[in-house]
């Protein structure tokens, strides 16, 4: 009984931590499940058969973008290959048997391509920097846990190498996410309260020598 209660409490706490903005995201679970099970496989098939480089779809507050990745079709199981980001932990959105495996594998492909123009700086990520852009860097997660950015770190904020951009909560212990370079904060890839894995890209940075980010920043 006690175990059961503790488990329930733990789940609730985890859910609270995951969903910093609470019920809005929970309400979207149905939408994302529909996306995962119905729309995404169809979308993947469509992308595969087309000449398109990218497809984006919106469902409720959720948006999924698929982008073609060059050279991602080697390996014995390319249909369900999960490479750079095998699963962004999104509890409640996966775990429906085998169908999500296919979903998981395509989501990372899009993410991987999106990140490939960035120099991956952070805890050792050997062999994952195909096109290094000397003007950009990215702060990666030091651990598995829940990401909390510092609110003052908005796009455009000037930072020095070593400045704290936020932290990852690992069982109640904060592990700092620091800027690897002098520069400006670019886009935050992961939202506050989201679960992140080790090495996951969290915050993009424009190097000090680069021109200030325009438009999207």
């Amino acid at each position, binding site marked *: 009984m006690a*175990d059961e209660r*503790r*488990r329930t*409490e*733990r*789940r609730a706490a*985890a859910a609270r931590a*995951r969903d910093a903005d609470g019920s809005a995201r929970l309400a979207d679970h149905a939408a994302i499940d529909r996306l995962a099970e119905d729309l995404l496989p169809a979308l993947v098939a469509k992308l595969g058969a087309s000449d398109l480089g990218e497809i984006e779809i919106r469902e409720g507050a959720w948006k999924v973008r698929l982008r073609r990745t060059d050279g991602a079709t*080697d*390996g*014995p*199981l390319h249909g*369900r*290959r*999960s*490479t*750079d980001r*095998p*699963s962004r*932990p999104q*509890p*409640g959105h*996966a*775990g*429906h*048997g*085998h169908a*999500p*495996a296919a979903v*998981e*594998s395509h989501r990372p492909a899009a993410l991987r391509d999106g990140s490939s123009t960035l120099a991956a700086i952070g*805890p*050792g*990520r*050997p062999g994952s920097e195909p096109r290094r852009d000397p003007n950009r860097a990215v702060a990666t997660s030091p*651990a*598995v*846990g*829940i990401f909390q950015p510092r609110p003052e770190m908005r796009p455009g904020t000037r930072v020095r190498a070593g400045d704290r951009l936020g932290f990852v909560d*690992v*069982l109640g*212990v904060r592990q700092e996410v620091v800027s690897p370079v002098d520069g400006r904060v670019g886009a935050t890839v992961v939202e506050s309260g989201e*679960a*992140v*894995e*080790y*090495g*996951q890209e969290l915050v993009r940075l424009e190097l000090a020598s680069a021109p200030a980010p325009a438009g999207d920043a």
Partner: protein
Amino acid sequence: MFEKILIANRGEIALRVLRACRLLGISAVVAYSEADRESLPVQLADEAICIGPADAKRSYLLAPAVISAALVTGCDAIHPGYGFLSEDEGFAEVVRAHGLTFIGPSPQVLERFASKEGSRRLLAGYGLPTIPGSNGLLRDDAHALDEAARIGFPVLIKPSAGGGGKGMRMVRTARELETALKICRSEARSAFGDDSLYLEKWLENNRHVEVQVAVDRYGHGVHLGERDCSVQRRHQKILEEAPTPALDAAARTDLCERALRAVVAAGYENVGTLEFLVDGAGDFYFIEINCRIQVEHPVTEMLTGIDLVTTQIRIAAGEPLTFTQADVAMRGHAIEFRINAEDPTADFRPQAGTVERFVVPGGPGIRMDSHLYAGYDVPPFYDSLLGKLIVWAHDRPTAIARARVALDELLIEGLTTNIAIHQAILSNDAFLEGRMTTNVLDRIGSAAFLAAASRP
């Protein structure tokens, strides 16, 4: 039953646990290090989550990373596999404190059996014979010297935590003892994070025979027969078979029943293995208990038809055993060959590299548990196990004949493996006559062993 399990391991055992989860309708999340990003269990998992860099101390051995991964992915249990955190009672306790279930014995039971030295004393109290050894853990070199002199050389230095031959040394004279202790302490510390050691009298020409048990939370237990793991090199098992050729049916039943009675009486829970040393006279001595699923568990699965991993998960979920001793029937003979990435002609040096071709043997009674695929890069950071070939037949000679065919068929191109040593074992008279003891391979030396086998 659990809804979602985090698999905190890698390689073939991660895949084995994943298959068990599928069978039980449980979602599985594979926790992996950066070096295992392209591994088969990660590709096949329902979800996968990166917990740290290649260095196991910062990933597979890092308890907070593993537990955090289970929490953020919404798992309700953690399967530790073997090695890594599988027998760490501190880890099991923290897992429980976070409202998760550790798939294995409960933390209290693990604690009771955590120390090998303590388990020996506990189970000796329930009627299992043990090898003469040091009185408790070694306090320092002087204490070790006193104890070794009392027991009589040669002695075997053993680590209180862990297994797999690490931190273990046989010492013949007092003069060698100090250096050997230093090496064992350092090996044990880096492998298990615990450098406490104890001594056992070294008995020559022994067989290693172990008994598989499964005990539910309600004190109902069965034994699933024994396995003979006498083919070893430097205390590392490389081939396991059942039934043991060392004992007749009556002696095997006696051993298994006494082992089961003792662990049930001592309050053991879940699947476990009691290791015994069997001497030339057929007398057996209890050495240690392994509170986890073992590498060689498929040997027992082939003989009994019982799935040990699903049994382990069910027991951890609080289910009672659905079968009794009378339901356990052991049929035929099974042999497991550990296929390692190591070079038997160069002192079994571990190999890393890319698997260029991988052809798995088949036919009646053949099972291959492996995480390899063509194109897979075997990382250099972990143990060298590439997979396990398990062969079953109605009797031992037929199992050996099938194994010869299967080993010839097994093709792993791109890196050096120990397949040749298995082929050599299958033409060794001591093995064929069922007289293998744990020291044979080391005494002969692998080069001589291979050469003898290739002689017409």
